């Protein structure tokens, strides 16, 4: 009986639809992580600037994203910006905007931490070799900084993947929404449909996030000295 | 009565110790009588700390036997918790508990482990603190003390357990030179009172003054056991001569 229940919920058609939803989720996560990482490197360099003003503004940007929950940010952009500018933005685009901005802030802080932990004398000896600003960064600082920031960056990616689940709350049709639709349709025949579907979603997210967090921990242990 | 007097307090027989298949102590034979002060000398990495740690059960041994008052300390059913109450140990890095005041540090063992009467222990603690000149720091936290003060407190903490033997592992090695003396004087005082001690140190003058016997350890083996006078003026082994030469300068 149990197995028949499962087969009624997880028909091949439903599974295909879930995969389609997962693709939307993956697209949002991937694009946001990509933009966040690249912009975050620039932002991190900016954060190590000598100017107090630039530093202060960067810090403010970071703290604003840290203190206000991401779901609130999604609301602000989804409801607020669209009504203020009188334009319509798709939930998916809103999600990518918010996650990219957030990712930039957090990634920037990781990059800043990595750069600041580099020993000063490295910079000086680089200068002494006559390396220019860009060359100094490219050949001396960045390769070392990458080791120090990769574990944190992967960790951030895991957090961003988990956070993509929130976009269902601003009307994006992704894996969670598709799951809810399947539950709607099948709940009369299968009372426990929500148990199976949410159970599957739980496992799906775990399958994606767990390897990432293991990787992050491994790298951290490997490079910690 | 006389039979107990002849029996050594601590007896080490054929002690063998390794870390990951690497020999660290080999064929150690040593007997320590009640009231005797042994100073262990030897180059860095020769196994001095490991020897003390084995005596205290902090490291398992792979061969041989350690006996306290004739009772073996090897084997699975040894209650180290009980034995450690009879063996006080002070480490190189002042390891007072930073979350407790001086007196809390001192009372922890006697009250929680030995379940002794608080007033009685408090009296003993105050007397010992007074003797090391730190009675006025009784309510201080470790971070408010100098390194030398911390080590004197650590000694008092160990003494308050009424141990039969004290182990000192380079207790002055992390101290600023001006504080070394105040700690060594405390240990000299203990020697005068007849405390049985095993001391690892690099202070040669102190070693000569305090020791009844010097044990010279090299690469995990005992090379030489001698009276201090003899060891410092006329060492028998080449290794000991080389070792002492380094300290001439």
């Amino acid at each position, binding site marked *: 009986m149990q197995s028949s229940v499962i087969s009624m919920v997880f028909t091949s058609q439903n599974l295909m639809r879930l995969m389609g939803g997962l693709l939307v989720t993956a697209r949002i996560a991937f694009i946001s992580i990509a933009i966040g990482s690249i912009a975050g490197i620039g932002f991190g360099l900016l954060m190590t600037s000598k100017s107090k003003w630039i530093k202060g503004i960067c810090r403010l940007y970071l703290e604003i994203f840290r203190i206000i929950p991401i779901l609130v940010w999604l609301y602000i952009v989804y409801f607020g910006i669209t009504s203020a500018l009188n334009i319509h933005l798709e939930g998916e685009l809103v999600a990518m905007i918010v996650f990219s901005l957030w990712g930039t802030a957090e990634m920037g802080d990781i990059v800043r931490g990595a750069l600041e932990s580099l020993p000063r004398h490295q910079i000086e000896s680089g200068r002494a070799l006559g390396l220019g600003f860009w060359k100094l960064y490219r050949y001396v600082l960045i390769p070392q900084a990458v080791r120090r920031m990769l574990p944190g960056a992967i960790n951030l990616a895991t957090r961003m993947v988990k956070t993509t689940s*929130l976009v269902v709350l601003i009307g994006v049709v992704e894996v969670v929404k598709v799951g809810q639709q399947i539950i709607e349709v099948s709940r009369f025949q299968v009372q426990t449909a929500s148990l199976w579907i*949410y*159970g599957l979603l*739980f496992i799906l997210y775990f399958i994606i996030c767990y390897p990432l967090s293991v990787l992050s921990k491994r790298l951290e242990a490997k490079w910690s000295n | 009565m006389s039979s107990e007097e002849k029996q050594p307090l601590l007896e080490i027989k054929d002690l063998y110790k390794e870390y990951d298949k690497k020999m660290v102590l080999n064929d150690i034979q040593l007997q320590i009588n009640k009231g005797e002060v042994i100073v262990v000398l030897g180059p860095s990495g020769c196994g001095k700390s490991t020897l003390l740690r084995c005596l205290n059960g902090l490291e398992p041994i792979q061969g041989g036997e350690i006996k306290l008052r004739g009772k073996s300390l090897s084997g699975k059913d040894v209650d180290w918790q*009980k034995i450690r109450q009879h063996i*006080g140990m002070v480490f190189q890095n002042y*390891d007072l508990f930073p979350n407790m005041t001086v007196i809390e540090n001192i009372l922890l063992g006697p009250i929680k482990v030995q379940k002794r009467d608080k007033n009685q222990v408090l009296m003993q603690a105050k007397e010992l603190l007074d003797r090391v000149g730190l009675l006025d720091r009784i309510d201080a936290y470790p971070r408010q003390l100098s390194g030398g003060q911390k080590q004197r407190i650590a000694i008092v903490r160990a003494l308050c357990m009424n141990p039969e033997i004290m182990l000192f592992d380079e207790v002055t090695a992390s101290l600023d030179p001006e504080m070394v003396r105040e700690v060594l004087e405390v240990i000299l005082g203990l020697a005068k009172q007849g405390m049985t001690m095993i001391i690892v140190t690099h202070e040669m003058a102190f070693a000569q003054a305090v020791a009844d016997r010097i044990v010279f350890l090299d690469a995990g083996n005992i090379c030489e056991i001698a009276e201090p006078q003899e060891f410092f003026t006329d060492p028998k082994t080449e290794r000991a001569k080389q070792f002492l030469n380094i300290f001439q300068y």
Partner: protein
Amino acid sequence: MSINWDFIINSIPLYEKAAWLTLKLAFWGILISLVIGLICSVIQYFKIRILRSIVGAYIELSRNTPLLIQLYFLYFGLTKLGLTLSENTCAIIGLSFLGGSYMSEAFRGGIEAVSKSQIESGLSLGLSKIQLARYVILPQAFSFSISSIGANCIFLLKETSIVGAIAILDLMNVTKDLIGMYYQTFESLLMLVIAYLIILLPMSFLLTWLERKVRYAEFGN
């Protein structure tokens, strides 16, 4: 753009009520998280067989799945098995399930930061393993982990924004309702942000202060 002050003033009681609810849920969530975290880290510290692997699995499951899915599973899924839980109870369980693993990791980090020589020093006084944990390791571990614990509290407070997804009239849902009913989008969102800032900013300052106060190096000040 002009701000509708009347609307803002009228909405204050709604937001106030929702904010208290958010705080209440967060309070219980954090408290239970601390208890779960402590239990888990003690089990891991004493390496208790079987329980230890259960704790390990729980930590990974909880840390590597989103709170939203945990809540949906609990509220819509498990209730189908005949378990009836109120929305608030679900929210607290969800927050605790998530927070417990984070707190446990914070404690574990603290325990690992206690130096080996402190432990040996305790052992050489004849302390038992339990006494060692009680008097030496846990007090020090706690002060080492206070900053991660603080960060986790802020994290959990922020995560409460998600409990609206299971039909709790929290700050998020109040805002959404007001936007839907009155189209006062800017005002509603402004109130939402202010409400969260009122909750989170003092908390964040308080924790920074506490962290300074309790830090290991500052015992006795």
